[in-house]
């Protein structure tokens, strides 16, 4: 499967980013935020979003210097072969652990909330099978699928939110500052890596139609994501109040089980398929990212062939913890903390080195390697 050279446009790009990052609001990421920031948890996506502007701005600044080069190539150029290998390996490890942790959590959601009797390995296997298939189709295909399904997903989320607001109570947002303003900022910024996916987006830099599309798409996507995640989290508080929500594992799934539309009381059957499709797209992209990095690090040209084996590996590693609700949650919390400095400092480092090397002074049309 050779990569087609058809580049993707702004719609597909934004859809991909929204599905990659925005879907996080439906797993246990909000629970982690609520647990530490209590009822001000909904501010975390906004605060983090504002902080995220800095690394993204720096990265875009660096990348506009190198036309058509992705994160791996730029990193090789800036850090030199040896250091670049180490940095990229770290990024790969984080990405790989993230895939394992998140797929394990999604499997747990499906297993505990919907298909209680189905063995975990079957759910996990089917989930990864679909995602691996999606990933092998290539980035352009994922993009067009993402754009096709995106409007439906957004509409279904909005329907859920409207119903939630109708049945909720705005007074639950108060006391507005949670544990106090400083605590909110501190605890949120420690978990900045909820947006770490943006770093990985720079792997796709050469696939995007133009620099302008990439820039505009990234900023727009960031804005949409901030709005989406924080409004959804506000709605969770509206329905449950902070004491309850701190104890829920998967707030989105509790929400869609609680709300009802007139006489239709089992709404979750309606929302589940949309959520599943979003998860498939999300993990297809994740697998693809892993394959790109792995392919580059070990000089494997046709990295698409790695995806099935990667997916298999994910299933087997993800199956190891016998109690996903506790162990995986714990790993995810730690991963969020560990990935934060990486996500924040790497762009700084890249920008600094580029600056010291005097890259910005040269003409934009320079060619590396």
């Amino acid at each position, binding site marked *: 499967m050779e990569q087609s050279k058809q580049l993707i446009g702004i719609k597909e790009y934004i859809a991909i980013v929204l599905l990659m990052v925005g879907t996080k609001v439906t797993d246990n990421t909000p629970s982690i935020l609520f647990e530490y920031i*209590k*009822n001000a948890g909904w501010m975390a996506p906004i605060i983090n979003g504002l902080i995220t502007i800095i690394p993204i701005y720096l990265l875009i600044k660096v990348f506009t210097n190198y036309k058509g080069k992705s994160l791996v190539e730029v990193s090789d150029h800036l850090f030199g072969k040896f250091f670049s290998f180490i940095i990229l390996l770290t990024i790969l490890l984080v990405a790989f652990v993230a895939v394992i942790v998140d797929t394990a959590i999604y499997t747990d959601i499906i297993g*505990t*909330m*919907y*298909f*209680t*009797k*189905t*063995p975990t390995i*079957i759910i996990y296997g*089917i989930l990864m099978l679909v995602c691996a298939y999606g990933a092998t189709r290539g980035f352009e295909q994922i993009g067009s699928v993402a754009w096709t399904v995106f409007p439906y997903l957004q509409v279904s989320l909005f329907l859920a939110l409207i119903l939630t607001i109708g049945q909720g*109570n705005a*007074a*639950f947002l*108060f*006391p*507005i*500052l*949670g*544990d*106090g303003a400083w605590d909110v900022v501190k605890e949120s910024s420690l978990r900045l890596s909820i947006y770490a996916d943006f770093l990985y987006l720079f792997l796709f830099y050469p696939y995007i139609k133009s620099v302008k599309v990439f820039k505009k798409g990234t900023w727009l996507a960031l804005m949409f994501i901030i709005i989406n995640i924080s409004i959804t989290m506000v709605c969770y508080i509206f*329905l*449950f*109040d*902070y*004491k*309850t929500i701190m*104890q829920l594992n998967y707030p989105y799934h*509790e929400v869609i*089980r*609680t*709300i*009802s539309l007139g006489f239709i*009381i*089992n709404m979750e059957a309606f929302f589940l398929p949309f959520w599943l499709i979003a998860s498939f797209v999300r993990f297809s992209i994740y697998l693809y990212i892993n394959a790109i990095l792995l392919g580059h690090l070990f000089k494997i040209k046709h990295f698409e062939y790695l995806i099935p084996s990667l997916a298999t590996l994910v299933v087997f590693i993800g199956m190891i913890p016998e109690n996903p609700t506790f162990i995986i949650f714990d790993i995810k919390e730690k991963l969020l903390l560990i990935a934060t400095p990486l996500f924040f400092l790497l762009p700084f480092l890249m920008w600094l080195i580029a600056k010291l090397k005097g890259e910005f002074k040269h003409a934009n049309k320079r060619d590396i390697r």
Partner: protein
Amino acid sequence: MLIKEILGKFILIPALLLILSGCWDQQEVEELTFVIAIGIDKVEDNENSVRITYLISNPEAGSSAQSGGSQEPPREIISFVADDFISSRNMANTVIAKQITYDLLRMIIISEDFARDENFIRWIYDATKSMEIKRDIKLLVTKEETATFFQNNKPLLETRPHEYFEKILATGNEMGNIPESQLYQFFRITEADADLFLGIYGTTIKDENSQSGENPQQITAGEFDFQGESNVTEFLGSAVFKEAKMIDTLTIEETRIAILLNPSLKPGYFIGTIPDPFDEKYRIAFRMDNASPLEFNMKLTSGTPTIDVTVPLLLEVLSNHSMTDYHKDKEKRNKLKESIEDNLNNKFNDFVKKTQEEYKSEPFGWSLLARKKFSTISDWEDFDWMKTYPDMKINVTAQVKLGKFGRQSDLPRIEEIRD
């Protein structure tokens, strides 16, 4: 190539269909037994077990899909001792042929005896563990054992139990006879540890000593005295829960006040009566409705905390037994208005005082408004609403607007007729 593609699709689509059915979790509706309500009772000499009662609905009974001449009853009741209401499912299947599911569970019913028990909280939280139980189901409290309650409850017309309960609870809530009482509200209020939760109170056992005719507003379940040929079940008033333990019951009037004074609830049309200011012998019936949102003025942080509540009400006068001439006389209308306001103010403030003195907390959800006055959770927790509430200075004022005086607003003068 084309053939290969078509063939590929033909193989792929059935393969996908196989996945769709859910394999292990495949359930045939025909092979399930739907539990509509679970009753939980205390077992006398065993603290670690509970008596579980299932009310099982027969989906075929009474529907047009009923196969010719089937005489199956609309419901089935089974009651037994179990460790909890999760594991009890398997035990019930020793008697019941089809697999038991909580997919359509709409109510959890607790006997008063169990609700007043310290350990009640341990069992009710099982509902958050099971994946089938939804959070918007109702929580009911019965005066008697729930098994007795289910057996006595024989609705004559709406014989299908799911239909009966849905209808009677919705109507009762609309009329203000019973509170809303959803399970997730129970959990929320218990966890927030500031307010009181009101559960629906019901019974099938009539209180023989009660004379509801004397004061129809001051009764709770079992005290409504009626004759005739109908179901014996009454849903009336509410069960008060404090920190997940039942502490008291509210009468129909108190339940209405609790709903009226709660800013987050939308009261239906409440009908009540007050003594006629022009002739104490008679009572005036009126229908009230919140005219606009409640107004609150809270001063919590400095000195003695005070709360001023204004309740704007729109009243429709429905009866006029003293046959007073309101139509022409503005003075009389004002007097009526004042006397209604006085009467309501007394009732509101008496009830608030009762909650302060007896319950030491309130069922009005006011703590949610109070939270707005604090900027951080630690400030709010230090304030300790439940501890401060009994000492607060609270003043509730009704602001009555007189609406219509019935369909025909004027009546003949009794003096003119009997002259």
